[in-house]
């Protein structure tokens, strides 16, 4: 019985029904295409990630390794000095203190690195959003005209890119500041170590090596 009701509600006009049908097909087609685009996006994202993960890992590995050479060596130098002094029955509270400071500094450096990484993630999310916005614009442009407002699009894109650089700079400013003071602190620790080597009357060769470490 329901169909009886539905007929008058759709109106007497036959064309209306056809139009409904058409728009329904249109809608279905669009849904399908959107689905295809989304599937493509997912496939592409997986492939892109897989292809770049190792590359990113290698680069990060090298960076992380380079950052820790000086502090690692300094800890090794001071540890050896402490062992030596113990065996020579030399008691240097300053040496003990410096070693503890260096251990603390190493921990701070590791923490700083982890924090910098955590900061990278929200940045990626912001990028996600802007990308999606860009996507929308691209889809819209596709539907409208192929050319014509291209120059405008490029213009706005450049502006956006510039903004991106500036905002990332201002975001990065703090961590680089932290890194700078961490580096300064490391320099101080090495200087104190150098003074201690002289004070304890340890070989010149060792001072030479610490100086080398300071210049890297």
């Amino acid at each position: 019985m329901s169909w009886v009701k539905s007929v008058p509600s759709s109106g007497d006009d036959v064309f209306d029904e056809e139009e409904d049908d058409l728009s329904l097909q249109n809608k279905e087609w669009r849904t399908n295409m959107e689905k295809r685009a989304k599937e493509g996006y997912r496939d592409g994202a997986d492939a892109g990630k897989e292809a770049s993960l190792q590359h990113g890992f290698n680069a990060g590995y090298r960076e992380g390794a380079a950052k820790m050479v000086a502090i690692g060596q300094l800890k090794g130098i001071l540890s050896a000095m402490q062992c030596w002094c113990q065996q020579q029955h030399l008691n240097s509270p300053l040496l003990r203190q410096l070693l503890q400071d260096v251990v603390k500094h190493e921990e701070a450096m590791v923490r700083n690195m982890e924090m910098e990484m955590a900061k990278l993630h929200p940045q990626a999310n912001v990028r996600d959003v802007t990308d999606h916005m860009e996507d929308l614009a691209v889809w819209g442009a596709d539907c409208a005209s192929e050319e014509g407002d291209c120059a405008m699009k490029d213009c706005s894109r450049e502006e956006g890119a510039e903004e991106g650089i500036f905002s990332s700079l201002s975001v990065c400013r703090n961590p680089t500041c932290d890194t700078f003071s961490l580096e300064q602190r490391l320099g101080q620790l090495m200087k104190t170590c150098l003074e201690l080597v002289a004070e304890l009357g340890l070989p010149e060769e060792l001072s030479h090596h610490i100086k080398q470490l300071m210049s890297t």
Partner: protein
Amino acid sequence: MALNSKSEDMFDVILLADDRFHVEGYREGYEEGTRQGLTEGRNHGGTHGAKLSLEMSFYYGFALTWKCLLQNSTEVNTHRKKLKTLETLLALLQSFPYDDAQYENLQQDITKTRAKFRQVCSLLNVLTDFREFVSTAGGLSF
């Protein structure tokens, strides 16, 4: 594009559109995936690289300092064996590229270096409580 060709069969048009949307989606996805992969990979790599570099640099500083101290001591001749072992450890550390994540003998060389360091410690009569201090502080795992 092929879509503009009027002689196209309707079926082909649909299939091509299907492909086109998939390809466009794929391209954008690939870019985003690449970005994500680079960031994630870099983060993971950074932690691993830093950890290993801390350990190996520690060995290097430790061995080099002992070498300096023993070479310049009054009883150099009694330290021949220690010095030789220290030299071997230093050579090991200098020859293996521990900052290269894809170095094929990485694991093997790490094991060798750690073993040599242990040998150095026992030859130098380094107290166990020192080793404990270092291992808790620096995260060295023997």
